[in-house]
């Protein structure tokens, strides 16, 4: 009986946790996108006002940002400093793909960031700033979309998780 109760408890909490995770996933992605936006705003000022080389700007930004975004900037900066990549795009893609399992960015996000990194470093400051602005626009739109979606779906996922858990427990036991 005790084992049954423990089993039911585990099943119920797993389902509730799944529901909670699904309800928060979009919010986490939106927060990560906002952190990336913060990093890109800092990069924009480093390029526009102080004309710092990318590696130096990225290492500085890593100290001012948090979590995975900070790691992405730091590792890309270090790869560039060590001249271990043939282009900025290559370094950026490698860093993001190394963290694929730890970020909430979707395939669309990473494709957008990669396209941005392919142009990063070349041309003049004006083109670089326009390039950064286009990614910031993308982030703003996505973050807004995600928050709207999250407000609508979050309660649904949480309730579905809890109710699904109860249903399985009732059916099985």
């Amino acid at each position, binding site marked *: 009986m005790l084992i049954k109760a423990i089993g039911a408890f585990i099943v119920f909490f797993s389902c509730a946790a799944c529901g909670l995770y699904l309800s928060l996933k979009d919010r986490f992605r939106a927060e990560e996108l906002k952190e990336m936006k913060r990093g890109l705003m800092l990069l924009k000022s480093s*390029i526009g006002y102080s004309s*710092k080389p*990318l*590696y130096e700007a990225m290492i500085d930004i890593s100290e001012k940002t948090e979590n995975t975004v900070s790691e992405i900037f730091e590792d890309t900066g270090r790869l560039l400093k060590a*001249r271990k990549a043939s*282009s*900025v795009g290559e370094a950026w893609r490698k860093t993001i793909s190394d963290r694929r399992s730890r970020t909430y960015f979707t395939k669309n996000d990473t494709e957008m960031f990669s396209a941005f990194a392919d142009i990063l470093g070349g041309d003049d400051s004006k083109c670089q700033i326009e390039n950064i602005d286009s990614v910031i626009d993308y982030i703003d739109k996505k973050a807004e979309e995600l928050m709207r979606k999250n407000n609508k779906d979050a309660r649904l996922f949480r309730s579905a998780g809890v109710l699904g858990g109860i249903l399985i427990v009732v059916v099985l036991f």
Partner: protein
Amino acid sequence: MLKNTVLDCFGEKMRKILGGYDWRNINEIRVRAERPVILKSGNNEYFVNNDGQAVFEPQKGYIAEHSDLEQMVNMISDYSLYSVQEQLRKGFITVRGGHRAAFAGSYAVENGQVCTVKNIGSINIRIAGEIKNCADDVLRFFGRGVLKNMLIISPVCGGKTTLLRDMARQLSEDGATVGIADERGEIAACYMGVPQLDVGIRTDVIDGCPKADAISMLIRTMSPELICADEIGAEEDFSAMREAALSGAFVICTAHGRDEEDIYKKFGYQRIAEIFDRLIVLEGRNNIGKIKHIANGRGEKICL
């Protein structure tokens, strides 16, 4: 160290090839798209094969690809072309170690002004060289620590800048506060504000700024006892030097010419005699850095 800083200018593939090469006495590396890479040592030319060995036949040399040049541009600019746009407009970038990377390709012009260089077809890496103590003879002649307004005269590639740099270094080491107006980055070869060539411990450098402005700024802000500038010529350069002389600082400059007569013809006797106490004339290209004679500002030889 020298080899590492030069190798930093190349992509991985060329770094491997050139990494195996014996670098002593190499002054220039010329990389042209779809042409063999050339290494120059004085008047001699070599090619380098895929194994990094010197060869004399161009057909056995490594042929540079477009991607090699693209990677070189990335490495030379620290992957940040936007941060070196100003230098690129002049056609060259000073890299870590003081080496100079010069570019040829299609230059984009807007409103009559060069904007940038695109489609780079060739890159010339000039390896920085400094000859320490080459100014010993001059300084011994004037007496150590004695400052005078001096003009170093020689034709191109005669060793003017090398002599000027060593004079700045030695006088700075001897206790003088030296200011260098390094418009083209040839004297101190600054990289991110730090001189890559030894110009002494009491030396301040303003680089990338027009000489006349740099001299005025140095006088107003760094209170130097000695100001050094390379290749003077414009009217405003002379005005700035006059200002320096009147403010109590000494100046050492260089100018292109075979001898003092050339300089008088070019700039006018009065101007030179007014500012400079000594004119140091170098032998020229065939005897780099060797002093031919020293004259006073009025052109009277005082040492042969």
